[in-house]
């Protein structure tokens, strides 16, 4: 996110007539890294000087070594693969169902009137609230994870699809009816194209939610995957393992989010404005 300093821009531009000199530019572009570097330094120093017990916070070198070890002995890949598979299956199932539900409600007011209140009521219960219920129904195996992840993705996708299908401009619809469009033509050529950017935002949000619930589900009930690695490390009091796994989870989530963000920005650039869809934590 570019740091737009509106106050400076609006009130103080006069005081900076020429562009800043080269070294100042360099310093500015390095600014985001000061805080993480300082924290890392403090952490390393604290560990080296023995201010912090390694049982509470292992040294950065130790975490790094654990990370390298996980990567070389292949454990990292098996756990990451297990997590990615879960998130993909759950996300695809949840978003397909979400697209279907959202489209049905978006195309027909009466379907919406029947379905949406129940949908909204069920949505009030977070993924973690569903977990014991689904656990009793299907047991602790893979289906539990797929169902919960799918539920997490389903909600934003459904709501965004519904919103997207409803935002076709009235005047375009009128043009369509003047040209004698059938309902089918109207949907395919007017409603769907205007809904696309919002659909994509919903899918992106759905993926974020799916990733979040993946971590939660794996923390509570799993025997492999990145979340399991965190719990496992915690149980053995190997905080280096915990931190290494947290770093991987964060980095992967960040990477995927950036990718989807770039794709969405490209789509938005082609279609004009970027839609706003309301989200939630889980």
């Amino acid at each position: 996110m570019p740091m737009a300093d509106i106050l400076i821009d609006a009130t103080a531009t006069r005081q900076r007539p020429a562009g800043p000199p080269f070294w100042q530019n360099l310093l500015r572009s390095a600014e985001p890294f000061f805080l993480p570097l300082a924290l890392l330094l403090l952490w390393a120093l604290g560990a080296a000087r023995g201010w912090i017990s390694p049982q509470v916070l292992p040294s950065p070198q130790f975490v790094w070594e654990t990370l390298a070890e996980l990567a070389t002995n292949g454990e990292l890949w098996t756990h990451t693969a297990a997590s990615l598979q879960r998130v993909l299956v759950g996300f695809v199932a949840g978003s397909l169902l979400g697209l279907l539900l959202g489209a049905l409600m978006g195309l027909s007011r009466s379907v919406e009137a029947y379905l949406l209140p129940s949908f909204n009521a069920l949505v009030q219960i977070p993924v973690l609230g569903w977990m014991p219920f689904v656990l009793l129904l299907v047991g602790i195996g893979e289906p539990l994870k797929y169902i919960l992840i799918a539920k997490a993705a389903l909600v934003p996708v459904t709501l965004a699809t519904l919103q997207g299908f409803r935002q076709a401009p009235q005047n375009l619809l009128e043009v369509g009816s003047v040209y004698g469009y059938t309902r089918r033509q109207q949907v395919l050529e007017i409603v769907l194209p205007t809904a696309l950017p919002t659909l994509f935002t919903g899918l992106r949000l759905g993926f974020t939610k799916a990733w979040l619930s993946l971590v939660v589900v794996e923390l509570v009930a799993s025997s492999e995957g990145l979340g399991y690695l965190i719990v496992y490390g915690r149980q053995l009091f190997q905080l280096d393992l915990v931190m290494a796994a947290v770093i991987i989870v964060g980095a992967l989530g960040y990477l995927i989010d950036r990718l989807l963000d770039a794709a969405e920005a490209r789509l938005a650039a082609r279609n004009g404005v970027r839609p706003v869809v309301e989200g939630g934590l889980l």
Partner: protein
Amino acid sequence: MSTPNTLSSVPARWRGLVLPVAAVLLWALASHLRLVNSALLVSPLQVLGTGLDLVTSGQLWLNLRASLLRELTGFVIGSTGGLVLGGLLGLWPRFGRLVGPSFNTFKQISLFAWIPLISVWFGLGDVAKVVFLSLAALVPVVVNTVDGIRSTPASLLEVARVYGYTRWQTTWHVVLPSAAPSIFTGIYLALVYSWLATIGAEYLLVAGRGVGNLLIEGSEHFRMDLVLFGMVTIGFVGWLMNAGARALERALGRRLGR
């Protein structure tokens, strides 16, 4: 769409109820006829009975109070911290440049992934839970506060400059009022998030009382009635918070003349 069909023959205001009522009737019928031979298929009346038991014995209230107290503590700490951090990030450009990117990276990491570390540092008790809840409430407040401050219309700032406002005056009379709706949204989200996080904390830092613990107990003892009633309670409280926060947001918005 205007063609009359059987779907549109039900009066509009009752349509939302058709599905839930049908579902409950089907459920009651299935459990009455023992369609599925499983201890998990409890009847709606059984769930209601469990609920009444929990309410009359005071159990529900005890657990609910523990959860809500924790939630509110975390919410107050987190959103206060969020307002301060968000204000600093938005109003103080240098601070924003130094800390903003780090914060944006931090918020990408799933909050729940921190729980094992929090449990090592703060134990499994109320302190750890409140720390976690505060973090959950902090993030949306910071994000929306910064957003609100950043999106002050340039024209308003221009006017302030023309009138020779000091920086303090600009902040107090121009930036903050224009950011207020977004800040409310952040606080509203913080309330919702911290409720979700409350359930999560009870799940992952199991110790003590709470609505989440009711659910866990039900799941461990194969008590579907307890699980279902717990789910309904969680959903209902979440809905109440949602509705309450929305009403408050509207009322505050009206007072500020929006």
